[in-house]
């Protein structure tokens, strides 16, 4: 990779890459995204490598590990280009057949194709799969076709093109105006207009300014930032360079969770590549812009996703938030003006510059422009990453893209926005999703986690789960959050243990009001959302727990009972071996029995029983 001294030099290199690129080149892209990686992407890629070598196809077929290909439910995914054949649930055993049938003979391996659950029809090409058809990828656009470790792949698809336009055709203020006109709002959750944030920072009198990319994706159920950091790291860097030019910063930071080791590795590599190529460093492409990026790793604290806590963490302190104002754009890192945007926000910037703000603003709703990436997980057939225009309805996302609820079960709720979001019930399924509409129904956009729940989820348990999570993650600095959460945890435990009282419901609402108005940061202020939304939409479940001492979804341990059906039990003793308290006994090959006094209701017997002999009521 040369060091690019000018835009002409870069363009010339890109032309060479394009001239060398054969559009008919056979490529095998093995998905190594967050969903497929734990299913064995690396072993699959190795199997392809060995098979290609064995069949003498090394020079003829290019093998790559790509970023997330979206439809994680059907991993490991493999994309064959240029035909765009999309195979799913591919295992190393399938490799010889794919090599023989598809790569050598040009045919299709039918059993590895996506099959429509309703019509039974099979889809050969990615573009025919309904999951992909309704998406409009901007941020995820390159994830399934590039090798995230190759700068050439990124350049070939127009990477770092926005620098020419920003540096040489626009003033910094014009870049900011373009961002303002595009309507881009922060993708980390709060939705603050990005252009306005940049302007505040630019106009601050201090000379030294900083940029931060917030990659501390802590919301359980959200993995879009991980997928982008691992799958298209240069897009984030490119966005940050444009931002540095616009606000006049010379140092940037990317703050990544240490729980994402691959993201850290890929970002480090991309930063090195960008330095070597002259996209980072002094006088970038002879524009006079000096900018470099450091990686700062989180150490495992959810609250550090909050911007002032994150800044404290980079400065070498514990992650305690500070009251705002002043906002980081006025006084942030080391007390200096700092723009802090989320991964997805930065990754949108290059395309807004390339295509123009009006193109971007034409997508989405009146006050929420562009697209949003959602991680669609939980009780839904097509779990995975989706990117849709703002204003797409929940029903379209969950049923059209997501393929509905598995196992013939019914939709109960969708939880958006991470632990600080709310649970949205069925009668809002036709809600067009944007920042404002979600807030109106008592939830938030958050970073874009979307967790679908069916009738087997207990909403009291779900709310308790979030409150417990937030209680453990609360930094403890301000009383309303620290003590409010402690009391909520206590009340939830009472309810779930069959000691709930009617007065608890009003008390919870009171606590929530105080926490919302008096907590220092977003963690405490929005922690009330899971409580209030479930109290509002699923009150009958609270009442069942409190008045009837029953958990209708059969989730809350103290309110349920496990028994073994003697007519079904084969006496295989699988449950006996698993029971941690030795509560199950009986003669081998005969029906077993659970001692209700000893049973701790952990449900392990229920899970290991192959014969469905364990009853839960």
């Amino acid at each position, binding site marked *: 990779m040369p060091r690019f001294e000018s835009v002409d030099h870069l363009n010339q290199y890109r032309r060479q890459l394009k001239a060398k690129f054969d559009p008919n080149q056979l490529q095998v892209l093995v998905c190594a995204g967050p969903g497929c990686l734990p299913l064995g992407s690396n072993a699959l890629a190795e199997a392809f490598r060995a098979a290609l070598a064995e069949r003498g196809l090394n020079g003829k077929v290019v093998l790559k590990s790509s970023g997330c290909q979206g439809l994680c439910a059907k991993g490991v995914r493999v994309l064959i280009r240029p035909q765009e054949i999309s195979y799913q649930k591919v295992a190393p055993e399938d490799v010889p057949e794919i090599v023989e049938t598809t790569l050598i003979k040009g045919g299709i391996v039918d059993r590895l194709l996506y099959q429509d659950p309703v019509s039974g029809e099979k889809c050969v090409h990615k573009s025919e799969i309904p999951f992909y058809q309704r998406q409009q990828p901007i941020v995820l656009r390159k994830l399934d076709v590039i090798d995230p470790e190759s700068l050439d792949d990124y350049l070939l698809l127009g990477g770092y093109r926005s620098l020419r336009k920003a540096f040489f055709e626009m003033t910094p203020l014009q870049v900011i105006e373009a961002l303002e006109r595009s309507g881009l709002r922060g993708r980390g959750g709060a939705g603050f207009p990005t252009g306005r944030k940049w302007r505040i920072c630019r106009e601050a009198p201090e000379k030294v300014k900083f940029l931060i990319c917030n990659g501390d994706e802590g919301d359980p159920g*959200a993995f879009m930032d991980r997928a982008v950091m691992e799958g298209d790291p240069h897009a984030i860097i490119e966005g940050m360079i444009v931002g540095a030019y616009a606000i006049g910063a010379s140092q940037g930071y990317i703050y990544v969770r240490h*729980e994402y080791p691959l993201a850290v590795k890929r970002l480090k590599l991309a930063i090195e590549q960008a330095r070597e190529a002259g996209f980072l460093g002094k006088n970038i492409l002879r524009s006079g812009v000096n900018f470099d990026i450091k990686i700062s790793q989180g150490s495992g*604290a959810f609250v550090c996703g909050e911007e002032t806590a994150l800044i404290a963490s980079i400065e070498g302190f514990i992650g305690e938030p500070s009251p705002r104002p002043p906002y980081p754009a006025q006084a942030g890192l080391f007390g200096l003006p700092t723009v802090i945007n989320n991964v997805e926000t930065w990754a949108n910037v290059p395309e807004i510059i390339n295509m123009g703000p009006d193109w971007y603003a034409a997508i989405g709703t009146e006050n929420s422009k562009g697209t949003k990436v959602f991680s669609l997980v939980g009780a839904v057939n097509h779990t995975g990453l989706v990117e849709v225009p703002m204003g797409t309805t929940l029903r379209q996302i969950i049923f059209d893209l997501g393929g509905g609820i598995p196992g013939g079960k019914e939709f109960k709720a969708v939880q958006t926005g991470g632990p600080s979001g709310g649970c949205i019930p069925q009668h809002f399924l036709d809600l067009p999703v944007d920042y404002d509409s979600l807030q109106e129904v008592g939830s938030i956009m958050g970073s874009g986690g979307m967790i679908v729940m069916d009738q087997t989820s207990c909403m009291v348990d779900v709310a308790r789960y979030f409150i417990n999570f937030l209680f453990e993650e609360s930094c403890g600095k301000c009383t309303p959050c620290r003590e409010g959460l402690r009391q909520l945890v206590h009340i939830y435990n009472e309810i779930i243990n069959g000691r709930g009282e009617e007065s608890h419901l009003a008390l919870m609402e009171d606590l929530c009001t105080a926490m919302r108005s008096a907590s220092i940061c977003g963690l405490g202020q929005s922690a009330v959302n899971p409580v209030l939304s479930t109290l509002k939409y699923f009150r009958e479940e609270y009442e069942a727990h409190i008045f009837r001492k029953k958990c209708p979804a059969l989730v809350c341990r103290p309110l349920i009972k496990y028994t073994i059906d003697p007519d079904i039990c084969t006496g295989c003793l699988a449950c006996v071996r698993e029971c*941690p308290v030795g509560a199950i006994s009986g003669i081998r090959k005969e029906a077993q029995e659970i001692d209700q006094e000893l049973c701790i209701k952990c449900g392990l017997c229920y899970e290991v029983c192959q014969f469905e002999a364990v009853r839960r009521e």
Partner: protein
Amino acid sequence: MDVARLEAILSRYEGESYDLIPILQDIQDEYNFLPKDELKEVAKRLSVPLSRIYSIATFYKMFSLMPKGEHQIKVCLGTTCHLKGGQRLLDSISSRLGIEVGYTSKDGKFSLETVGCLGSCAQAPVMMVDDKYYARVTVDKVPKILKQYQ
């Protein structure tokens, strides 16, 4: 205290107080915990009070003041994993190893931890042993997974 071992870490940094967390991260990775003598030396070299180091070591989850096991088991209790039986998975591992969350097994082989979310929600419940992910871990898969490390 092995001075050279600590020196190798400190030499990567300029020695400013904002280097504190990255230095502690490196010590944690190198030693598998934060040994007291090393922390005292870091406090001296960066001119920060030991109490600040203690506050950081106890605030952030990745740090441990006690030696961790040879293999780190992280059971995900993110929302999706919670809904799909992450707690049962945790109970099963905990009872098999005879340790509670946050502890290390007597033979020093395993430390058991929970994590807020590993970001592989589509394959819930998920667990990690060191840097390896395990997908859709039902409790019957636990013995086989643990065996590889025993």
